[in-house]
């Protein structure tokens, strides 16, 4: 399927900003079953300079700075991607994937192949997911057992998070510690993804954080509202000798084509859509709108 994604982020400041430096992680990367057809980013007011680079994890970062005084900053991206996840998704249910048990996975991670070395960094603590406690490990161990299939365990973990945790926006912020989310069992997609990642790492397997979008489908017969789509986040687990598999604990599903990948990292810290340092500005008000439209000509 081909999707057109328009993503607008707007900051309105209570007092003027004299200059600012920003980094955006908004350009969708290539990933399994997904290709980027076109992309543009427009920033208002006109930035003094824009540069793009690929970061350590392979994500596209856009860095820009606004050097003249402004009270509003607007970043608009338009991406066109083609996504066909079906074939890859179906392969999850084959023995090559499902047959990998926790014990065999842990043993396979001892190898020094480039793929394993690359994946192993996602077992270590990361900036937002650190010092995880026993509660996390206990929670993980209910699903992950030595001779059990890793895929099945991860699937179950996703289901359990979906069932045990309540989606409550506004309860957590990006700085809410994992332990607190675990204790309160409330949060948003970021929190659920990070809880799952913490669990998987606690038993010694690699897991990473995926930042992206999800197309929301309106109820049957209703017209879709503009701006109703959203930035989204989910997690991915590494199954040695097979590959990375995505799970969306917020929606209790393995992504289909509606999950559009923008970037990934160890946790949210590595792939925030937009961050920056502003000089002046006072208080700011943020508005975000995402629109995803599918082109049905395939």
């Amino acid at each position, binding site marked *: 399927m081909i999707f057109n994604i328009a993503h607008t982020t707007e*900051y309105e400041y209570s007092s003027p900003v*004299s*200059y*600012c*430096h*920003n*980094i955006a992680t908004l350009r969708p990367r290539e990933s399994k079953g997904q290709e980027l057809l076109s992309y543009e980013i427009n920033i208002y007011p006109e930035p*003094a*300079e824009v*540069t793009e*680079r690929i*970061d*350590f*994890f392979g994500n596209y970062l856009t*860095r820009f*700075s606004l*050097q003249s005084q402004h009270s509003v900053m607007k970043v608009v991206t338009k991406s066109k991607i083609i996504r066909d996840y079906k074939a890859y998704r179906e392969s999850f249910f084959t023995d090559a994937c499902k047959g990998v048990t926790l014990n065999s996975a842990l043993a396979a991670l001892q190898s*020094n192949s*480039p793929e394993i*070395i690359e994946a*192993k*960094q996602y077992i*270590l*603590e990361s*900036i*937002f997911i650190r010092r995880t406690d026993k509660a996390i490990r206990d929670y993980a161990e209910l699903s992950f057992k030595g001779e059990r299939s890793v895929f099945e365990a991860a699937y179950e973990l996703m289901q359990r998070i979906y069932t045990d945790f309540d989606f409550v926006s506004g309860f957590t912020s*990006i*700085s809410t510690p994992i332990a607190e989310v675990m204790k309160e069992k409330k949060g948003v997609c970021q929190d659920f993804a990070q809880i799952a990642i913490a669990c998987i790492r606690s038993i010694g397997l690699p897991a990473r954080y995926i930042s992206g979008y999800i197309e929301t489908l309106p109820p049957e017969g209703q017209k879709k509202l503009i701006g109703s789509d959203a930035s989204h986040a989910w997690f991915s687990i590494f199954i040695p000798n097979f590959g990375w598999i995505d799970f969306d604990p917020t929606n209790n599903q393995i992504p289909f084509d509606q999950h559009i990948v923008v970037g990934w990292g160890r946790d949210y*810290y*590595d792939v*925030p859509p*937009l*961050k*920056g*340092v*502003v*000089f*002046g*500005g006072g208080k*700011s008000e943020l508005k975000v709108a995402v629109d995803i439209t599918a082109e049905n000509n395939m």
Partner: protein
Amino acid sequence: MPVISTAWLNNYFTDYKYDEMFTPEMEVKPHWNQLFNGLKDLGEEGLKTRQKDIDWLLSENGVTYNVYNDPKGLHRPWNLNVVPCLLHESEWKTVSEGLKQRAELLNLVLKDIYGDRKLIKEGIVPSEIIYGHRGFLRQCAGINYSTDKLLSMYAADISRGTDGRLWVVNDRAEAPSGMGYALENRSTTSRILPEMFSKMNVKRLSGFFQEFNQMLLDASPENKENTNIVILTPGSHNETYFEHAYLASFLGYPLVQGNDLVVRDGFLWMKSLKGLKQVDVVLRRVDDVFIDPLELREDSHLGVAGLLDVVRRNNVAIINPVGSGVIENPGLIPFMPAIAEYFLKEELLLPQIASWWCGQEKERNFVLNNISNLVIKRIDRTNRESIHFGEFLSSEEKEKLKLEINKRPYRFVAQEKISFSTTPNLANGKFEPRNMVARAFSIATKDGYSVMPGGLVRVARDRNTFRVSNQRGGTSKDFWILEDTPSVETKAQYLNLNTSISVSGLNDLPSLTAENLYWAGRYVGRTLVNARFLRMVLKQMVLVQDNNEKPDSLKLQLLYKAVTQLSGTYPGFCKKNKKGEYAMDNPYEEILSVILDKDRAGSLAHTISMFSNSYYSIRNLWSSDMWRVFENIQKIWKNFEEDSDRSINKMIKVLNQLITRLIAFMGLIEESIMVQQGLLLYFIGLQLEQSILTITKCRSLLTIKYDEQVEYELLEYLLVSHESLNIYRYSYRSYIKIEHVIDLLLFDLEYPRSLTFMFSRIKKDIAKLPHSNTINHLIDYQKYIFEGFSKLRLACAEDLVKTKSEQDLLRKDLDDLFEHLSTLLFKTSQSISKTYFDHTNTQNQLVRQSFPI
């Protein structure tokens, strides 16, 4: 060699380990002979005196080492023991070859870690040692640097191992400290022990510092004539701030803080008085993660937003590059032999402390089974709290630690206990052995690395302490490398730096320095004027029987009110406070508080502390004479605070001392700092402050008409507090009349203490500021001063003293003039701040967060 027996050597050893100076039989090793004889000739008393001289010199020069949360206060004096530590060149040669090799190896490791990561890919180094180290900054991966060596500076802590050789125990690369202290130690010790230093063929440090300077120049990404180098410090609260300032003034580069710098158009700029000036090289003492709030720690105010991107574009060089912290990594130690083999096909020349990385099963088991004999560290935490000495842990603590290790084994390294050698230290007039560690410094040169012939030796606090650390109250020593033949001094002992690079003018003055100088001027002026006024008031109080009740005389009441107005300590004597108490009912109490309560804004104690802060943060501009007087002022005040005597006479005495020192200090400033170094800003601040306070003082005492006797006395007090009574008598030779007083204090064009004189001086000084206009239209602050100056020139004392009618008590015209002048000065100050000290922009995060990286 005969066995030595001297009183001050009694009980030198209780049990012998390796000693630097003595053999187990208490014979002096040959290379120590000359020093030993020299010290013996000095005798116990002589040595004590020399030590005292050192302590005095260090404290006079303000050599400090700040300890966070130290009850002794921020600026703890640096400890330097009179007995240097010696090493013969023959041994040092081996050590320095080993250090050069290690520096090169770590340089290659650093390049590899942020480049191809072959060490990881080819299985030489386990990935967790790098990826699991907080110092590995993924933001820095893949940067192409223009310098040949990535690791420009490298420091190693070395100490003797069990085999008597010097071993490496720590690698330091992020922003290694100690070089400046080593230099200061050398300068002090060579002055205190001249007879020994000059005869003992001690290798000199000057060549090394020349190379150091050359290294900074060569680091510039662009080859140009005037390379701009700055030294970036976290600020005056940092523990080694003294050293930052010392190196800055020694090398002649501006000392800046993050606020002084800004990133624009892909380059790094220093905010200077004139405007932005491009920076090519940053010698930084700010830690990796604090250096760029855009890409690293978001909540850091010590760095510069966007700096990493400038590095990425190769438009600035940071020494050492951001991310070097990853090689401060004891996890690498067990793999160093393999790394040496991999990169250089060589064996390690220098032994290193035995270490076991717990990420490997066999090693981990060994560590868990032998934990009591080992020292456990984190691979990425070298602070004391993260170091566990197995032998001192309770069995409960041991179990807890084992659990931690099992949970995240890759994070831990165990090391054997350092055995240390001892070296003689003078303590209470006796020689005592102390465990010692030396920090050695290497820098990148065109062909390899160069090692400082010397270094910073630190010894434990007492003979039973085996850990060596500055924070724990250890002491330091000069480190002499001795040659058999006299050291040929190729150049003068002082650095012959390439002079074309600096001598920067007022335009290039960092704006933060400019601001500090401006406020230094203002606070010094405020302290002096307030101290003089308070002294005059106290002298009146002495004459009163009881100062704990409301004074009968009107003149005293007026003086008290003037104290409140001058110091700005409202409500004070002017009004009842919120609790309904009226200070006038107990003047003594209130005056005491205005002098001593440092938490009260406007009090003398508060002003002095503001004055000290502003001076401390520009200490690289100071001469040592200034330090001496500054320290003296601090001491006077401290003693007063601790003294129980709170009598009025005592207070007068202290103020007398304070005022004398302040005046000496002000005189020294004028001759120690050059106008283009920023003295102009100091003068502007000082004159502005004195003008403002002169106006306040005159306004309090002159604008209301009183009966003749009261008025006469007030005029006299005013003249006294203004140190102008003698001048008045000399000029007018008459009964004190208000018209004449106004003429003298306000309008006299020749008298330096008059307001008109000060305005005229400010007018001249501000015209020299970079943005001032001397040809066409004046800019704002010039206009205000010009207007004030004209007002003063046009006024006439005869008219001003009149009131509207005989019954009217307020001298309205005079009061209006004062008010007008105050407003103009206030606006001037604001306009200068706005034009030159750019602070309106507070740094904020787009998305507020703060996380340790």
